[in-house]
């Protein structure tokens, strides 16, 4: 039926559905079959069909005597999936109907599960439906959240008071009932269903889980009393439901009465979304609802003795308060103690732009606020900058992002809607469009097509030379960072003003922009740019990749030259760079090797690191001639901290040993490597052997001695 349905127009489908409905009502025997067929249409993307189905389900389950009870139960089981789906359809009317249908179905299915075994699947669906509904009580579902929590408390009260009905049913079914009688005693219920009727050893319906959930749901509902503002419709709706709990669940009476006893409208704040007049009325209305509730529970003996005195006192107080204002004009009563709640939202949070100009695009405070007319262009730039930076520093991240979100939506709205743009904006859009697409000039006299969404022109491709120029600039900037004493770690607390009292803007900006900037951060960024940023996956074969590796080498050369300027002082930097170099190359080549080798022994492939080897060699070659006899420590440090050594690299130590003045450094390094770097042990021993055949006597002697010791 549903596949055929695709060929029909929505109106035709609805016409057929109407006929099916008529059939069901005129021949009740066909009703179950009709309903099951109609469930196939619930997922129809056409809203009018979906709404028709919801309406039909509502009239089928709510107050319908055409359906026999056992059919109703079977159909309720079959309807669970559709209801779960519908409970997430974002439409207030649909959701309201879903709540009603679920209220009936929840009861039917709960009883069914209680009385039958092996209903795991049904039970989990029922639980899913229940959770889908109750989880929406605290949100504004199906509305989207507004710009702040206070506003959301006051939005979509309608759905909240509807959901309340369902939540109270769940609390009622999932906890034990003891009805309070006229004399205040409580007895098990005569013929209504509740947890009492479920076997205490039921496999799915566990008493402890059920009662825990009931209690949590009641807490959720009662949380509204802890709000610091007044919502009379919601509060009175909750109080009216609380009497059911008071009557049937004496175990929760203390919880409710404790809240009522301590509730006082005088401690609440005026909401930012209501006038003081509205707040005065709210107080009066809520006080009245409390009075009626207390009177009711006292009169019907629903109050445990320990609360009677305090509730009677509270009642007298509320009656007096009501009598005081009854005949007065409530708005003229002086109430100096009214305080407004702290405002957390935006005065102008509209997401649709009213007039298309920049003021209306960005304005988040009251549009008529005089402050908006202040001309900021008269403020000197340095003061303006410090104001902005200060403001950014103080703004909360969530509020700032909410603000940007609002402005973003306004912008999108302005672009998408067909509103004729104000001349200023229109002109700018026109110029931009002409800038990147000349063909559009013939479109019309304005060249502006409001239907098209404006996108930025794509950036033009840089030539290789341009890229190289830019990289040079980037490298230069990095070394400036290294040299510039002003860029210091943010942790280094100092005053942000220069000697003449002006604010050091770049330092302030650094504080905001790069919070974790450290003294050495530049070398990490630069080495990673060379080793990872410029590397691509095609193994240096494409022209692009060759260009990239050339750029990488520019950076390496720059770092290398920087090192040569001060070999003794910059050894740490070189170790850091070469470690980055080796690690990146190793990981990168390993990935390629694994991709190439499908077999499992792929992991044992020797991974070569030619780039690292080349630059490590260059560093050693550059360094060794300049080593002084007392540079022992830094050289051994380098040999120890380089990530990888091979025979070729170690071989460069030979020249040190040959120099009579520095031979000590050479031999010490070889000994160190023999002892602490086993992978190059043999290479070092080979060097010693080679040296022991030297024609220099002292060298020969030292080398032979060590060779004999370690071979």
């Amino acid at each position: 039926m549903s596949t055929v349905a695709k060929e029909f127009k929505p109106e035709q489908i609805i016409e057929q559905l109407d006929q099916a409905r008529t059939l069901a009502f005129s021949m009740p025997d066909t009703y179950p079959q009709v309903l099951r067929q109609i469930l196939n249409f619930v997922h129809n993307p056409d809203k009018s069909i979906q709404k028709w189905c919801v309406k039909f389900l509502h009239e089928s389950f709510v107050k319908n005597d055409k359906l026999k009870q056992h059919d109703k139960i079977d159909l309720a089981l079959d309807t669970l999936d559709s209801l779960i789906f519908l409970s997430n359809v974002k439409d207030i009317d649909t959701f309201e109907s879903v709540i009603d249908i679920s209220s009936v179905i929840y009861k039917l299915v709960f009883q069914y599960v209680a009385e039958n075994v092996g209903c795991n699947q049904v039970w989990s669906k029922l639980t899913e439906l229940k959770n889908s509904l109750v989880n929406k009580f605290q949100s504004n579902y199906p509305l989207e959240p507004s710009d702040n929590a206070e506003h959301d408390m006051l939005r979509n009260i309608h759905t909240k008071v509807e959901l309340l009905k369902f939540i109270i049913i769940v609390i009622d079914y999932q906890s034990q009932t003891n009805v309070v009688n006229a004399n205040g005693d409580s007895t098990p219920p005569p013929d209504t269903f509740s947890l009492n009727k479920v076997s205490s050893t039921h496999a799915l319906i566990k008493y402890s889980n059920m009662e825990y959930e009931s209690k949590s749901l009641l807490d959720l509902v009662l949380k509204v009393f802890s709000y610091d503002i007044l919502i009379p419709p919601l509060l009175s709706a909750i109080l009216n439901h609380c009497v059911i709990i008071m009557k049937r669940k004496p175990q929760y009476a203390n919880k409710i009465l404790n809240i009522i006893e301590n509730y006082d409208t005088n401690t609440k704040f005026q909401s930012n979304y209501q006038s003081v007049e509205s707040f005065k009325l709210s107080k009066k209305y809520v006080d009245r609802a409390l009075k009626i509730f207390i009177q009711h529970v006292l009169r019907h003996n629903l109050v445990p003795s320990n609360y009677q005195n305090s509730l009677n006192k509270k009642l007298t107080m509320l009656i007096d308060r009501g009598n005081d204002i009854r005949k007065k004009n409530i708005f003229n009563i002086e109430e100096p103690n009214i305080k407004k709640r702290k405002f957390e939202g935006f005065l102008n949070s509209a997401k649709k732009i009213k007039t298309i100009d920049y003021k209306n695009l960005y304005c988040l405070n009251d549009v008529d606020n005089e402050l908006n007319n202040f001309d900021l262009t008269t403020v000197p730039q340095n003061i303006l900058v410090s104001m902005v930076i200060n403001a950014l520093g103080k703004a909360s991240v969530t509020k700032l992002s909410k603000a940007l979100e609002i402005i973003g939506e306004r912008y999108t709205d302005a672009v998408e809607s067909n509103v004729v743009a104000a001349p200023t904006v229109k002109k700018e859009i026109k110029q931009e469009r002409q800038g990147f697409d000349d063909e559009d000039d013939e479109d019309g006299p304005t060249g502006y097509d409001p239907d098209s969404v404006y996108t930025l022109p794509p950036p033009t491709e840089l030539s290789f030379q341009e890229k190289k120029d830019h990289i040079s600039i980037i490298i230069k900037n990095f070394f400036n960072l290294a040299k510039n004493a002003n860029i210091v770690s943010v942790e280094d607390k100092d005053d942000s003003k220069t000697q003449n009292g002006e604010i050091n803007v770049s330092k302030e900006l650094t504080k905001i922009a790069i919070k974790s900037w450290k003294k050495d951060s530049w070398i990490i960024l630069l080495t990673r740019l060379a080793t990872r940023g410029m590397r691509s996956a095609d193994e240096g074969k494409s022209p692009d990749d060759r260009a990239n590796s050339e750029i990488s080498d520019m950076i390496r050369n720059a770092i290398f030259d920087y090192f040569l300027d001060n070999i003794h002082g910059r050894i740490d930097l070189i170790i850091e760079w070469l470690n980055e170099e080796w690690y990146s190359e190793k990981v990168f080549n390993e990935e390629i090797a694994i991709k190439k080798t499908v077999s499992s022994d792929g992991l044992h492939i020797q991974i070569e690191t030619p780039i690292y080897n080349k630059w490590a060699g260059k560093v050693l070659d550059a360094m060794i001639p300049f080593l002084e006899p007392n540079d022992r420590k830094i050289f051994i440090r380098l040999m120890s901290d380089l990530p990888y050594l091979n025979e070729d690299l170690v071989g460069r130590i030979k020249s040190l040993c040959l120099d009579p003045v520095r031979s000590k450094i050479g031999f010490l390094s070889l000994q160190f490597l023999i002892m602490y770097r086993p992978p190059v042990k043999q290479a070092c021993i080979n060097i010693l052997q080679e040296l022991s055949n030297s024609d220099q006597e002292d060298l020969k002697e030292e080398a032979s001695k060590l060779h004999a010791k370690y071979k």
Partner: protein
Amino acid sequence: MVTDSLKICTVCASNNNRSMEAHKQLKDAGYDVKSFGTGSAVRLPGPSIDKPNVYEFGTPYEDIYNDLISQNCRKMYEANGLIHMLDRNRHVKPAPEKWHSNSYAGKFDLVITCEERCFDSVMDDLMFRMYSRNDESDVKQIVHVINVDIKDDNENALLGGKGILKLVTMIHEFRQKKKDAVEDESDVILEDQMMSILTEWQKENTHLPTLYGISYY
């Protein structure tokens, strides 16, 4: 007849003066309206303050009318407006009805009471109905209950009726607003905006103090 009218009822103590005046005005304006009394019986002024005319709810206005004009104090009843009131009532509906036994009348969206005592009585009775009736296949429906406090005399009943008609019209017009026309749907949800509507109305009608709450049937 107003299209898409809320189901409304007006309530006072005896379902004769205030609720009937409002009933008439709302009915004349085309609203779907009924009316009830919350007293234990229909009490109308009698020859003296300690001798009221008492009738059971359900006694036709026609009968009460005939009873009053047959009494010796007929002239007094004519002078104090009682006869005129019953004459009006019998043209609006047959007999005074009692709130507490009105389940036959169906559910209402909006109940307007004319006295704080009646508001309390309606709210209290709705609370009682919350747990005393148990139809498993029925679901409860939201009802807005508003009290507009009106002094129980001819002139005030007339003014009060006008105020109630204005309030109902404001609520009705609010409900006609289209969802699509607003940015935030909350702006057209009655429960979200009821406090603003009541505040606005109260500012214009400071002589008619209000109460308000949401209950369920």
